[in-house]
């Protein structure tokens, strides 16, 4: 994949990819959460599981393919290991069909992230820090994390701001 295709083509590609993802899982409707809800998706979803929303408990997220990497961040002195599903898998599971994700944290912190980010980077929805669940005190339970160490371009205020922690809701726009 060329790293920088022009914007229009990239967008249609992204939509196409999202549609195909959705089309690939037509029969598997999103199951309903059995434990406490840790993440809620709202907005343009094809497969909501609770009204027009998609609720996830920790088990549902753990059931998705897991991804791990170590990276340095501005929030910790050392590099830490983050583990969790790729954000794009989470979106696909809910049949998200948008161009922008509005991330909302427990403290009402909110930031917009282009869907493009999750296609271009392996953005992880981390649920484990150094292989252990994160409490709210540890900026858990969910932490959107970019692979900062994999790409120097990511080490900027823009991406640090998009790395929402204590993630509560994703509004697909």
């Amino acid at each position: 994949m060329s790293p920088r295709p022009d914007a229009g083509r990239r967008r249609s590609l992204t939509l196409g990819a999202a549609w195909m993802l959705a089309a690939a899982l037509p029969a598997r409707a999103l199951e309903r959460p059995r434990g406490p809800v840790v993440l809620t998706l709202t907005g343009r979803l094809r497969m909501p599981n609770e009204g027009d929303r998609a609720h996830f408990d920790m088990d549902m997220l753990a059931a998705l393919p897991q991804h791990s990497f170590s990276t340095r961040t501005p929030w910790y002195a050392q590099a830490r290991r983050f583990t969790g599903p790729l954000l794009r898998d989470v979106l696909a599971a809910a049949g998200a069909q948008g161009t922008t994700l509005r991330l909302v944290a427990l403290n009402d912190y909110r930031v917009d992230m282009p869907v493009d980010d999750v296609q271009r980077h392996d953005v992880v929805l981390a649920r484990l820090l150094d292989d252990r669940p994160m409490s709210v005190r540890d900026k858990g339970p969910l932490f959107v994390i970019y692979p900062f160490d994999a790409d120097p371009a990511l080490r900027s205020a823009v991406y640090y701001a998009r790395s929402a922690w204590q993630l509560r809701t994703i509004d697909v726009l």
Partner: protein
Amino acid sequence: MAAADDRRAVGEPRRRWTWLGLVGVGLALLLLAAAMVQTRQFALLRQTVQSSDDFVVLSIYQAETEYLRLREQWRVAATEPAPDLDALRLRYDIWISRVDLLDAERPRRLIRASDEFLRTMEQIEGFIAAADRALGPQPVAEPSTTFLQAQLPGLEALGPPLHAMSLGAAHRVAEQSEQRTQAVREQNQISLALTLSLSVLTLAFALIALNQVRQLRERRLVLEELAHNLREARREAEAASEAKSAFLANMSHEIRTPFHGLMGMLSLLRETGLGPKQIDYLRTATESADHLLAILNDILDMSQLESGRMALAPAAVDLRTLLRDVEALMRPQANAKALALHIDADPAVPERVVLDTTRVKQILFNLVSNAVKFSDRGAVVLDVRVRRDASAEGRPELEFVVTDTGIGMDEATLARLFNRFVQGDNSRSRRHGGTGLGLEISRNLARLMGGDITARSRLGEGSSFTFRLPLEVPAEPAGDAATNAAALAARSRSLQVLVAEDHPVNRQYMAALLENLGHEAHFTTNGEEAVRAARERAFDVVLMDLHMPVLDGVGATRAIRALPDRARSTVPIVALTADAFEQTRERCLVAGMNDFLTKPVSPEKLAASLRRLFGSPAAAPERGDQPAAPVLPQAGGGSALIDEAAIAMALQAMPRERLASMVEAFLGQGPQTVQRLRTAVRDAQPLELRVNAHAAKGAALNLGLAALAATAEALQQGAAHLPAHEIARLVQRYEELLPATREALVAMGVLSGTPAPAAT
């Protein structure tokens, strides 16, 4: 002054190069500084991005915000009977997560870890430790309303320090931002200064380079001028050298005239009945004189060769006659040393060749006499042959090889043999005499002819000198056959000779010479008459004096050459002159003359010239009949008044009585000549003076009247520029010499005691 300029001219570029170097170093340093500034700017920018202190400020601000929300919720929970403990716990946890961030490294750095900060952090930690007993992950107490109320003051006490922290961070960041701005401004100023300096230096560099170019151009101009001056100086030096050569040639020529007198006196002295000791002294004196004469001749040749005035006069000659002449002259020398002398000409050598007889003879004399000189036994052989394969372009060359069985030379001697003043063997040089110029002159002459002289030798085994020159055979077209026929005829018949000579005594003298040679002489007294005579009658040859009234010899020659009748216009013309200068000779040849005779004209010279023109020695058959030595009456002594050699030559050509009458005639005209000279002086007519003096000189030379000739020549030479009293003195001297000369001639026996009546 010029030297000082030169020094400055040399010093300045060096200083300029130093400046250029300094400016160059300055430029390099500036560029380095610019690079450093850029690097620093880049680092500064990166630091800004990396530190993200703004982000930290946001964290602190959020920590305070979260604190405020927690306090609000806590206050509500503390007053409610059934508070939402989960929500409170969540809020509490969120706040703690924010507080944790404050303890990270970067915020510490930003807030400078002051005591106040540490106290605040301790206060916060204290509160958290207390609250965690009920709200922490492992609660030990019930989060009852009482508990919440009990902790509320602790929570509320955190407000002011947190707010202060937030404000402090904000101020700190603002400060930092200001610092950064300041730094950037400074950087910009430095950059600007650097750029300015760079521009100034570049400008300076360009100016210096420009100046350098200008200096180089000026220097080039100076050099060009210098070169011009040098050329000028060289030209002047060459002119001076040429003048010196001419002077040398003139001097040697002048010295020769009295010297002949000296030698004549020496030979007369021998006849005066000397004792054996005196004869021995005389022999030594004569040898010295011969030697001196040889040196004079060499110097004359050398100076002419050096000044480039030596001109060759190649003519068709009979080679075997030439060889006979060489043999005739050399045989006595060889016989004296009991050496065999062989001269062999290869049958392939043509009979007639074109070359300068005098000069070729001179070379052969030199080579053969050297061979004789350096051989004590055996033979000297002169081989003449033609080489066709020899050298350049296969042109045939005439080769004369002189081989001897003498002492030979080693390599070193051979190597410096042709150098000036070098003689074959220093130890023998005194014994053999010579100027050491002979070989150099010979080689230079040979080279002038387009040939060369080479030598081979081995010590003790003799030497071999090879003289070669391009072989030139005279072209013999139909016209020449007639000339040859005429030449052949000339052998049997006497020649019709036209003599153009203004001086009566010279006319008599030439008449005697020609008569003696068996030719018929016709006279004219100036150039115009000569041209008229040559037009009206066919002559075999014209003898043309150069200095004549009305029309001089050169002018007459041109006029004759311009005659419409080809037979008349091609008559051979021989110049007669008292000038031995090469320029005079060239002038004659250029004007179309065929030969050139210097006065005194001896019978041999005249005969040789006629031989050259008509290719036959038979024109002077009487020569053999004449006594070899002039019969001169014994006399008590002579003086420099008389050129005895010339008298002797004249006596070869005519009987004493005839010479006496001619001398009488000349001396008899003396008073008239003096009168004419005086008139010319009085009327200030240098030309008239010169013409008269020249006429007197020519006649006096022919008659051997040396002192009169010398005085006449001094008058002729000085006519234009000597002061009047000097000229008057010379005329006076000429007048005084007339009786003195007569007395000397009487004493010599040439004249009888009383003046002839005709002369007075």
